[in-house]
């Protein structure tokens, strides 16, 4: 029987994979995907708590829906910014974001 623990471990693993992805990857889109993975790990957590908790109202699920929507907005803005950068620099590697160094 799959219980809460399984979901939690999965969510934690997802969160970590996402974080490592965000930290390790060189491609801006991959970094973005890492961040999105972290958010989805949270969604998994919320839904699992909702399912295994004793709540009458599916609070966790509805919260997850909001998170998904916000994540989509974030991705849209991120892609727009990446596109702007891409047009100018013709690649999307994060380590080229070095103009901010001084």
């Amino acid at each position, binding site marked *: 029987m799959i219980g809460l623990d399984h979901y939690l471990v999965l969510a934690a693993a997802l969160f970590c994979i996402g974080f490592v992805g*965000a*930290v*390790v990857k060189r491609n801006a889109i991959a970094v973005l995907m890492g961040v999105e993975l972290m958010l989805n790990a949270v969604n998994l957590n919320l839904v699992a708590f909702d399912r295994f908790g004793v709540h009458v109202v599916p609070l966790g699920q509805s919260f997850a829906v909001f998170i998904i929507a916000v994540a989509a907005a974030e991705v849209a803005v991120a892609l727009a910014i990446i596109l702007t950068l891409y047009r100018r620099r013709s690649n999307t590697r994060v*380590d080229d*974001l*070095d103009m901010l160094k001084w």
Partner: protein
Amino acid sequence: MVESAIGLVLAPLASFILISFVTRRAAILSAVISIAAAGISFALSLSLLVGVLSAPAGAGLAAGAHASIQWLSIPSIGRFRGLEIAMGVLVDPLSATMSVIVSLVAFLVTIYSLGYMKGDPGFSRYFSYLSLFAFSMLGLVIADNYFQTFVFWELVGLCSYLLIGFWYAKPSASDAARKAFVTNRWADFAFMVGVILLFIFFGTFDFGQLSSAIAGARGSAMLALVAALVFVGPLGKSAQFPFHVWLPDAMEGPTPVSALIHAATMVAAGVYLIARGFALFQSVPGVMETMAYLGGFTALFAASIALVQKDIKRILAYSTLSQLGYMFMALGVGSMSAGMFHLTTHAFFKALLFLGAGSVIHATEEQDIFKMGGLGKKMKITAWTFVIGALALSGIFPLAGFWSKDEILFASLSSGHIGLYVLGIAVAFMTAFYMFRLIFTAFGGTAFGGTASGGEPTEHAHVHESGPAMTIPLIVLAVLSVFAGLIGSPWFQSAFGFSFGSFIFFGRPEASHLDMTTASISTVVALSGIFLAWLVYGKKLLKAERIAAALGPLYRLLDHKFYIDEIYAWVFAKIMLGLGIVFDWIDHYIVDGLFDGLGGATRALGRKLRLTQSGRLQGYALVIFAAVAIAVVFISTDLLGGFLK
């Protein structure tokens, strides 16, 4: 009485506003307004003094008037302690006397500036600052609580900043201004902490309420802490030993400013504040002892530096430090009367000396005394008034300085501080020596006294006496320097039934006296100082160079002012900026370094981690992660029993 007190503060403020916004293009009008405002303040302060004097004799600090309004009131709710801050005026002998000194010197200096600043492009701006300063200083003097005092305290600091850096095109001037401000802020930081602690312990800022509250708390450790912290504020403003570095540099400002702010009034504000809060300091013997010895030390320290200075204003600046040290010493040995008396007389003769120096600088455009010489013949009024000021400063009978210095020496002796007494005598000797070194070099002899020359002789051909706007204040101050001391003399006591000591005092009125032993010792010492200066610089029987060479390292030490500036610069550069570098380093390199470190560890395996190449963005993310880990672990210690509980 309260109305006059408010009026005397507001007149310069009105002048400041008027000059800044209306008459800033009309230079002469600005000066007239400023002078008029200072005159009004002076007249009103005289009326205050008369009012206080007409109170029954022996009323002491109780004579006068007190009025205040609630400025800020936050009632307490729950754990939030209420905050009641009043703004008020306190008129008593102390504040009345001080306001007379301040407004009188301000009045004279404003008139003097008319001549001194003539033709300066910032003429109006100068007078507006001067009025702003008069407002702030008078506001400080009549404040009835620590909070208001602090506000005006900072404001005079700001004026001092503005005026030292008045010729801001000169880098040394703006550097000096910043140095003065920042040094004072360090002292004010302790002062502020002290004041707020005071409020938290006693629930009020009011001087009157505090002095009765403090009486009930004598001997407690927190009172000692508060007194020590508050004491640091005056140390900064009066430029006592660890904070003295800003005052000599402050001479970059126009000379009348040095006379008003950095000799007569603002630097004396520290002494005034100690007198104001004497109840607080007096209840902590440790602070009083520190005050006495620190003052004595500064007096000796500064006087010794003054011995070798060449710049006329710097000599006077170190002399001011030294005299302020005297005042601290007087207060420290418990004689508020002597301290305030010396403040009064010093205000007159030191303002005179500075204005005299200004007159010389104005005429010769030179500050090095060894490039002057023979000025006595060309500038008779300046020279004679300068000599009077120097005699008064040296404490020659019966000039002002004699009486007040004698009070201080007597007070230190009678309170059992033999060491301080000896120190005071030594300082008196040095004072007489460096003042007459100055006079014999600059005013005596022929043009270019002969020791060090540099300019062409023709340069001084045009030197002539300054105009009446400058000489009249000199004469007035010279008269005051001669006679002001008499109000503390036994003769005055017997003639009018009261004297300085029975007018301003703490605890018990202090009788005026003329102790023949101390008086004659100090006079002899001062005269011998003058004599030595005459031998070296007047007659040139002893060669100054040879003395300097003989003293070698000591001379160098004095010439470099004991290297205090260098030490502070080192501390700032090494410690403050060093810490900045450390934080900078953490921000820039720990992040990269994390990766380099990881990379270094794995390089042995044949390949760098890919994240070594990644940008700083990801480094930042990793720092966030590390912070989370630390936070979670730290919080969780609560569950494991918790080392914090």
